[in-house]
């Protein structure tokens, strides 16, 4: 059972290698919307976000294909 010890692995612990996308930062949510980037170039959310398939480079597409193929395999 799990109480028995597996052999210790010499691998690095993943958490030490890189920072994950779920390692949220604890901060106060500022309800007041402020334009802190005044003077800088103001970007806009996707000129046509939902119709542009390149919005996430090709990763999303790949992931989707993969998931679809997985579903088919089931």
């Amino acid at each position, binding site marked *: 059972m*799990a109480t*028995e010890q597996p052999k210790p692995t010499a691998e690095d612990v*993943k958490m030490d290698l890189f*920072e994950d996308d*779920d390692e949220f930062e604890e901060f106060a949510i500022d309800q007041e919307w402020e334009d802190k980037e005044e*003077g800088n170039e103001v970007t806009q*959310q996707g000129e046509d976000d939902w119709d542009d398939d390149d919005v*996430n480079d090709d990763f999303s597409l*790949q992931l989707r294909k993969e998931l679809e193929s997985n579903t088919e395999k089931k």
Partner: protein
Amino acid sequence: MRTWQLYSVSGNVLGWKVETVMEEATLALPPTLPQQHLQSMPDLLRQGSSRLADKQHSSISTPSSITGQGTGRENEKGSGKALNAPQSAGLEKQFSMFQTGSGKAVNISSAGLNRAKALLGLQDIETFPASETKRTSSDQLFPFPSVTVKGTGSTNASLSPFDVKFTSSVSPAEEILNCADKPPPIKFHTAGGRSISVSSEALKRARSLLGDPELGCLVDEDDAADPLFSFSKDQKSVDQASTKELNSDTPVSLLSAVKGNGSSSLFTSPLRSTLYHKKSSIKTENLVPASNLMKEFDAVAKESTSGLDHSIPQHGQLFEKNSTTMDLRENDFASKAKFLEGPSRGPLVDISNSFGAGFADRNQNFGRKRKPGGSFVSPFKKPRSANIITPLKRNDSDTANGFSNLAPKLPSQKGKVSVRYPFHVPRMYMKEYLGKPLPIQSKLESLPDEVRRMNPDTAEIYVFNDKSCSGCIGVESFLEMLSRSGASMQYVSKKWVTNHYKWIVWKLASYERCYNAKISGKLLTICNVLEELKYRYEREVNYGHRSAIKRILEGDVTPSSMMVLCISNIYSVCDSPVGSQSSLSSTTENGTCAKVELTDGWYSIIAVLDTLLSKKLAAGKLFVGQKLRIWGAGLCGWTGPVSPLEASGTTSLLLHINGTYRAHWASRLGFCKGGGIPLSFMSIKEGGGAVPITLVGISRIYPVLFRERLSNGGFIVRSERMEAREMQYFNERRCSVVEGIVSASQREKRDPYIGSDYESEEGARILRILERAAEPELLMAEMTSEQLNLFSSYQAKLEALRQSDLQKSLERALQDAGLAERDITPFMRVRVVGLTSKSTSLKCCPKEGLITIWNPTEKQQSELAEGQAFAVSGLTPISADSSTLYLQAKGSTAKWLPLSPLAIEHFEVFFCPRQSIPLNKLSEVRMSREFDIAAVVVFVGQLYTEAHQKKQWVFVADGSTATLDSNDGSETLMAISFTSPCIRTDSFAPISSNLVGSTVCFCNLIKRARDNINNLWVAEATENSTYYLNYDHSHCSHLKDAGASAERWAKISGLRLEKLRGRVLSIISCSET
């Protein structure tokens, strides 16, 4: 009873012997009279060593160095002199507690004491004198059980092992063996992981050994064995003892020597462990009775385990149970026990049993802080097994292989569980570390099937098949591992672990899937999962951090905050809140919405998609693994703060497409810091809900209008000018009603108010008298002050009543006349245009919008300016036509932040400034477009009703002549159609007829089809159109020159104007006939 008698041999050399004294002589004396109390040798040594400890005399010579001397002389010269051993008082004077029986002070050098201790094996108490035999007896725990000896005294006496050694041949070990097992055993684990049962008696004895005063065992011989006073070891020796086998460095106890085989049945008791970890200098100076040791322990343990409240509640009970030994002691020393019961009872229950993997780092830190001279040695036997794993070692191995070797499962504690958080070393973000994903084809070959197909559902039931284990490792194993890592089960449940296990495994599997070549199975490991679980425990339990979904569900953050969440599941059918069950495709077709599950990596929440998002889902643009940037979401089915693990299935986020954008795969999950990226105005979908922020350029600002809600439920919109007139008219009507009521009330015969009380009656009487009196002033002069007061108060009452009556009748009358109040809402329309970045390749006509700002603030009215670009929050699209998107906003909630000129430079020019259009250039204005003109009013037509609207034609000319117009070169004429709502027969005309001949600046007129028959331009004045009588007005500065020019022309062209007027009249007469 037996006591130690110390007597002087010669000089500093002392001899001592066991002497039996009358029991009464000892027991009758409480410790408050120490000078008459015969001390045991251990007592004496303790007192001596207390002094020594303070002076850091902690080294000891070879234990056997004085043995010969001591043993050679003992019992030889028993003079029978009673020892007069003071306790606390005696501590003040160095070594003066040793006195001869005759009262002579005996000086003992510290070296001598040390030697004596060595001789007695006091610093090696933990050496257990047991045999190889495995025993589960409680006695195994304790090296110095009290041994009952049928003494030479009148009663049984409780003796320490030293007694035994010197007075009899009974080995304590043998005595231990003789002890019967006492149920129930308490489970302990050895450092080597063996389980050891310890009886309550044993624990009790341990307690007594440590000087539990309640049990009355403190002043007896056992105290001599108390190793807490063996200050002989330095740090090094302690460490060695704990990590290595017992070796020759360690003084061997006499008892061990006697038995010669005290090296097995090793164990680590929680107490020992505590003592070991928390060892530090104990100020023995203040130790009066041994009981205070417990306090010291407690204090030290508490101090070192700050925040690790980890009491073992059973202890208190256990120690209250009697053992045979304790029975004896209690019988014998009841008075002492009673005496000491009070002061030191409190902390005893709270023996911190704080060892374990969970706070490995603390232990390490603690170890570094140890004071070199103040160490003490555990009272219990040192582990001697070669495979001993010290807590420190154990923790290291823990983190390395993800398993805890620590056998005891400890009760709840809130200690550090993950040493990784907070992270001290900056790490690369996953995107930088992992790089761009490789082409998908080559990835999946080497992956196990279950990893390849991993999704949150399968992740939850995923098990690791570890080769070194006989079984599979899944959620339950991780729960156990987490628990053994020090996580408190008070804060985490199986549900908690299951949830986080699911997200962690899914994440790690996803890494494996996309970066197989780089990772090749290194991420989805037991160790990594456990580390992540520990990290999450650390953050959530110890740091109180909460992920986005947790904060929202707990009601601390509005769901409208911007956050990135990941789609973790898709529920194909929406059963709420719109529509019935149907397939996904028909769902979207029917305009109903689909549901998905979103996660922030820590928890999940159901999200209801709006119609447009549901269509995107159906189109395959939303899928599991797609991250969404969500902003301005709503929350439905939420009744109050709830834990994400307990939230009902009906609690869901409401997503709409205008506030939901696809996010990059490497976007950080959770709340977004700082302002969000505005949604481009072009991307705003008509039915897509509120727009968090968008960028617009203001092309036109229209005048403030006033919408009146009518009593019949309808609305009427008026210009500011019309509203002012309407308001004036309204007030006039009100005034006439009020006047009528007031005069009517004045005409009414005043009924003197007669109240029922004395004051009113008397006041009324005085009033009546005064009214009838010929000279009321004279009467009043003769009235008493009381009468005057009554009269004046009556008058005031009367007046108040009259006012109140009048008010009521006024209100009634106004209500009847429909003049009670007006429900007016001001609003402002702003024409905007979407901003197009200069850098974008997408070049198309920017989208226009018309924003209605309800109840615009003063600030907005003054600060919004044509040509300025703004970032606007709080817009909601209402409808759209081919060219224009109609939006609305509340003045109070919508925020308009002007963009800096620098920022505006990044966008294409959107603004076409207003300009004056002379009539002869009107052909350049496109049909239905707005234009501004300064012109002279030639003729103002009659108001007429058409299709429930009041209409009025106004004819203007500006003196310009149409070059193409060959008809005698007469001036160009324009007819402007004004429309006003038709609600009353006496409606005001939009343009007063007395404006004829004046120069007027018209703004926002709409160009209509030219009347070629009558050879005139036609324009329409809409709600948004306005006019200014003064061309110096700030809003028509662009018409200033044109206005001045038109005015000049009018002044000199009286004849021409008359001619034009005649032309207008002929047109009108023609149209009428």
